[in-house]
């Protein structure tokens, strides 16, 4: 399994006149890896993730995911790419408040054109697997932070993405809920899910990542493969 799944080559991202958020980053990630991106605030971690997700375009360099040149995709192309290949989890959950938990989870499936019934079955299955199925008909505002993040993970997985991106998934959670989400990510990785997670929580990195990439001022400072305790 040494086929590169994600390949960043000399990626630079510059906002306006300031110093670039990312400069000349090259990185290769293979399928099945769980990579933790570490670094201080403002070091370019989210920028890196957004580039991989096709939410943003590099100023220079190339981003290739699963054979797709993500940096060359148009608006429609990148939307389809995200829908089919990427699942995203955010620090502040980004659940839609006026949709029920089930409707939130079903949404990405429905955007691909999946019928409501099929999407509902898939969502119920995922919510069950993640242990939040009893909240399916509730609105996200009623749930605790840990529960919300589980729903967000369920939503990210609904289209069976090749790649799961998580931006500070435990950043807004208390310790107990954080542990909960960590355990969930570890489980997903164990089941073969490729994951890139951005965090400055070292324990998250050590507990569920196979590899750590450290960013400082937009450059890769450290890139180590680490053995995780199973």
């Amino acid at each position: 399994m040494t086929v590169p799944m994600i390949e960043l080559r000399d990626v630079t991202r510059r906002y306006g006149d300031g110093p670039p958020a990312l400069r000349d980053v090259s990185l290769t990630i293979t399928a099945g890896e769980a990579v933790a991106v570490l670094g201080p605030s403002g070091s370019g971690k989210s920028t890196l993730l957004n580039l991989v997700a096709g939410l943003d375009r590099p100023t220079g360099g190339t981003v290739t995911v699963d054979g797709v040149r993500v940096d060359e995709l148009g608006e429609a192309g990148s939307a389809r790419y995200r829908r089919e290949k990427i699942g995203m989890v955010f620090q502040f959950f980004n659940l839609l408040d006026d949709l029920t938990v089930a409707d939130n989870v079903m949404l990405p499936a429905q955007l691909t054109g999946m019928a409501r019934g099929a999407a509902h079955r898939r969502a119920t299955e995922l919510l069950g697997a993640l242990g939040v199925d009893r909240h399916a008909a509730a609105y996200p505002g009623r749930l605790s932070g840990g529960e919300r993040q589980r729903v967000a993970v369920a939503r990210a997985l609904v289209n069976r993405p090749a790649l799961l991106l998580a931006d500070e998934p435990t950043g807004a959670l208390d310790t107990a809920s954080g542990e909960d989400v960590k355990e969930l990510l570890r489980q997903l990785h164990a089941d073969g899910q490729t994951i890139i997670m951005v965090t400055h929580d070292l324990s998250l990195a050590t507990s569920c990542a196979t590899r750590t990439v450290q960013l400082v001022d937009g450059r890769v400072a450290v890139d180590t493969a680490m053995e995780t305790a199973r």
Partner: protein
Amino acid sequence: MSALGRVVRSGVGRRRVQTIVIGLVVMIAVSASVLGGTLLVASNAPFDRAFAQQNGAHLTAQFDSTRTTAEQLTVSGHASGVSAAAGPFRTVSISPVDDKDRPVPPLTVVGRTRPDAAAVDAVKLIEGRWATGSGELVVLNDGRFPPDERAVGTVWRLPDLPGSPTLTIVGVARSISATADGWVVPEQIAGLTTPGTAGGYQMLYRFATADTAGQVDTGRAAVRAALPADALTASRSWLTTREEGAGDTALLVPFLLAFGVLGLVMSVLIIGNVIAGAVSTGTRRIGILKALGFTPNQVVRAYLGQALIPALAGAAFGVVVGNAISLPVLALTNDIYGTSDSGVVLWVDAGVVAGTLTLAAVTAWVAASRAGRLRTVDALAVGRTPTAGRGQWAARLTARIPLPRPVTLGLAHPFARPVRSAAIVAAIAFGAAAVTFSFGLAASLTEVQATANHGDVVVGPGTPKPGTPGGRPVKGDRVPAGPTSTPRSAKETAAIVKAITAQAGTSGYCGVADAEATMAGLSGALPILATTGDGCSSGYRMVSGTWYEKPGEIVVATPFLTATQTRIGDTVVLTDHGTQIAVRIVGEAFNDDHDGMQLLTAAATLAAAEPDLEPEDFYIAVKDGTDPEAYAEALEPEIQQFDAHTSTENVGTPEVVLVINALTALLSLMLVAVAALGVLNTVVLQTRERVHEIGIHKALGMAPRQTIAMVIASVAVAGLAGGAIGTPAGVFLQRMIVTEMGRGAGYHLPASVLDVFGPVELVLFGLGGIVIAVLGALLPAGWAARTRTASALRTE
């Protein structure tokens, strides 16, 4: 104060779309109102103003040239009470034929040198030039030539005169006093006079006082006294001309008022909506301003300023645009009324601007006062937690609709902001109502025009009636001035009928003869159209009752019923040539011939009184698919031997109808634009409020087309509702205004004039609301689709 100024300025700059929308809405409202106001002023007493502008003749007098002299006539211009006079001019009546040798209605021609600065009847040239030499003719713009036919350049021949001279039309002129049908240079008159006849003189008088018929009569008596007895052969008071000219002018008023009200209500709705929207998306900013120490009043003033600056700019542009649009429209009304209005009416401009700005300020103040009342803590908190909760039921419901998910997501949006959505529904409803009304009005007016056609082809005596071919005056028929033709014999009638019925393409015919009778209680003679043939009923539209079926039954128009206080079913007694005939009114038709006093009946009704009555004209209905022109040309040789001619009854659309149609189209386009701008503003607000949500959707893989679909779906409901409300309202408005216009003219209207909407049209107009909504949403939906997802997600 300067801090407040800076807040206002930065607010105007930051809320670019809202600023532009307010400016545009005010601009459209002001320009529509300026247009409407200017036209209202222009349609106010247009005859009197045109008469004053042209030094109209209070008395147009015709003299026998064998009984008086030019010198005596010149002296009569100083008779007591005469304040100004023009003439004497030589006059003659001519009967020309056109290039196809078809006779045209005879004209009274006056020899005059270029008269645009004359003390009386300053005839105004509206096309071409004045006659400068022999063989040139300037004609009166009496509707003789339809709008699509050029008069200038036409050559007429005078076959009755030695050598068959020709006249080339070189100009068209307007005389509000209608003193002649045409003008030539004075030297030409002799050549147009039939050898052995004398011709006549014309004098035009203005009197010091001529406001009443009595005063005009006094003036006429003074003129008569100054001349040999019997010299005056005919005269016409300006009051008669004025009476004939009235009527059309009032037509403009009801619909201008309808549009004025629609426009104002819409401006209030949109401006209120824009400011309320600015307040609601700016709550965070309001919180910060208050936290910094702004008083509620200052906050309200800041928002008021944000609305009034663009409103002021919009009003300024609106005045310019409104006056610019008024110019061509006034050129048209000038044509119709004979006025020479320049367009800019300063007090209308000032009034409209002041009124609109006051309205904008009040509306903005009401909407902005919410910002002043907002509690600082709430205001600061609002920006953080998106207003969830409201509309969740709708989202739950629409999620079940089996449509693509982006669409069902959008369908729920309006329910999160019920008040704003209601305002948008209202704005779209007004737009849809305006379009429906506009279409309906145009269709109704066209139908009214169509009722003047009693057949596709007309067979008439040697000389066609004035007004055919071509346009005819909107109201009242011109009295035929030509030589009366000899009555037809029964044998000739039978031969013509035979030719008509034998002609391929004939669907039916109606032979008509003009007769007269008197009726107790009515002064003067009642005109009667005595008909024979099988195709008479198809030439008239019924208002109520039925068409006559047997002798003794008559059909009348509303003015007759009003004047005689009768109703359908009543029997009245007519006296015709001393014979009393009892007739029963069986139906009411829409018929404005003879100002609606004409009775329609079978010729057999009058058989006892007028056994020899023969039809003068035949109105022929052709079968579907038969070209009337070709039919007329084919029939012509068959009937020519009986001194009869065909003409296609092509009643041109009068200019007042063209003006009304053009104006309605323009005004409804403006209202649609205002409604679309309202939608645009709403969608911009909504997109700004939902920028984070849209970011999430895109992160989850929502494609640009799906985003556009979602945004458009979010206004489609409002569009549908607006159309569903607006279209019936527009139909109602059309029926009300058209009925009112009919009532003003003294008529009940037939169903064909009122029922102009078919089910297909109603459905199409109902869907027009969606078109308005989509038009307004398309642009901001595109912006929403292009929002930078990464930065949208950062706003947390």
